[in-house]
């Protein structure tokens, strides 16, 4: 991110040009396009092929959604290694339980629901493994925040740390909506909540993130 300015407020360190096809500000933008539930004939065909045990169908699912799955898992778990384990485990779970998929949601949504649950399980088990380490905090899995002398941390790391302070539900909704580009109907199906709850959770998550991200600057200004 070339436009990061260490002396500017956090929102000014953001590149004014978003990545192509990924920029998302107004919630109504995406809902207006296509099938909001994601149940397309292609999705159904993919589910049917996976149910039939066709490994090429799983490969197609990976080509279509693998990057997004890896990315979400990495943001939920903190490391590439854990993320890859979670994605692999998700594919195995999909294969094991594909016969129970009834098509109430899209196949992709169902797969992401499994992924999110797998990530939460991994996170919990990792926390249990480390519970004897003194002063262990939930966000300790995130990489240490490198600071330039007298300056701000990089935006990405600051955001990762801020996200780690959110509740599990807020973190999931924020990442699914703002980073992965799912809309509220899909997130609601993934997390087994209502669309309204998804919207409210996102709102609260963003409010909390703003507070967290603004805090260091105000304290720094106060100290100067």
């Amino acid at each position: 991110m070339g436009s990061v300015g260490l002396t500017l407020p956090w929102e000014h360190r953001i590149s004014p040009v978003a990545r192509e096809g990924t920029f998302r500000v107004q919630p109504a933008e995406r809902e207006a396009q296509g099938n909001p539930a994601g149940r397309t004939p292609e999705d159904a065909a993919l589910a049917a092929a996976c149910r039939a045990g066709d490994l090429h169908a799983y490969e197609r699912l990976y080509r279509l959604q693998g990057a997004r799955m890896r990315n979400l898992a990495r943001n939920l778990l903190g490391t590439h290694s854990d993320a890859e384990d979670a994605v692999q485990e998700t594919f195995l779970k999909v294969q094991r339980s594909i016969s129970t998929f009834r098509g109430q949601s899209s196949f992709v949504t169902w797969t992401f629901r499994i992924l999110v649950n797998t990530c939460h399980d991994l996170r919990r088990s990792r926390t249990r493994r480390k519970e004897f380490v003194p002063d262990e905090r939930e966000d300790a899995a995130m990489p240490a925040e490198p600071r330039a002398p007298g300056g701000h941390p990089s935006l990405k790391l600051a955001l990762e740390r801020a996200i780690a302070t959110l509740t599990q539900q807020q973190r999931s909704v924020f990442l699914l909506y703002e980073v992965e580009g799912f809309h509220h109907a899909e997130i609601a199906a993934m997390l087994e909540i209502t669309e309204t709850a998804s919207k409210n959770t996102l709102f609260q998550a963003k409010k909390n993130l703003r507070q967290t991200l603004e805090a260091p600057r105000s304290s720094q200004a106060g100290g100067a």
Partner: protein
Amino acid sequence: MQIKCEDRERIFRDGSAEQWAGLELHAASCLACAKELQAWKSLSVAAQELRDDQESPALWPRIESALAQQAQQSALHKPWLERLSFWRSAPSVWQTALAGALVLLLALTAGYLYVHRHPAPGPTETYNPLLRDSKVAEVERAERDYMQAIDKLAAEAKPQIDTPDSPLMANYREKLVMLDGAIDELRMHAGQNPSNAHLRYQLLSMYQEKQATLQEVLETKP
């Protein structure tokens, strides 16, 4: 659409496209809302920094291998009921026909087995601790004959037993007294439960023991 400052949070939470456009318009003339709107949008833009498009070429081969292994294992351990799961996708007419055929087959098999069933084994073919009346009479008759034969044997050995001339003979006498006592007791119980074959077998073994003892006594005759 007329938007006010107090509408801002509601729009952030669940605003329509039209309301967002109205808020943009309002922010052009409201510094506080412009700042809030900018910060809100910035979070969405900043979130894109969390997208990591780094390739992981080794991951799919790893997953593919694990999927193939799991498929192989599940094929080996598939329950027989699941192997019939292809019928779930068959038309309901065929499913009904199959179910009907299975019921018919089951009924025919049950009918055949009922008609051609083997008769229950008779009492003579199995060990039955309770003997029937006719069998009891037969056993008692044989027992009487056996007792008479043993009594003849006892009469022959009586002189030696009554006047034992050696410690061995005294032991034989003692044993015979004990056997007679046991025989009397068993006969009393057998009289109360004439159909109890177990008692009859015990009585028979006592008689056999008495017979063997008497034979030994006679064999030690000087």
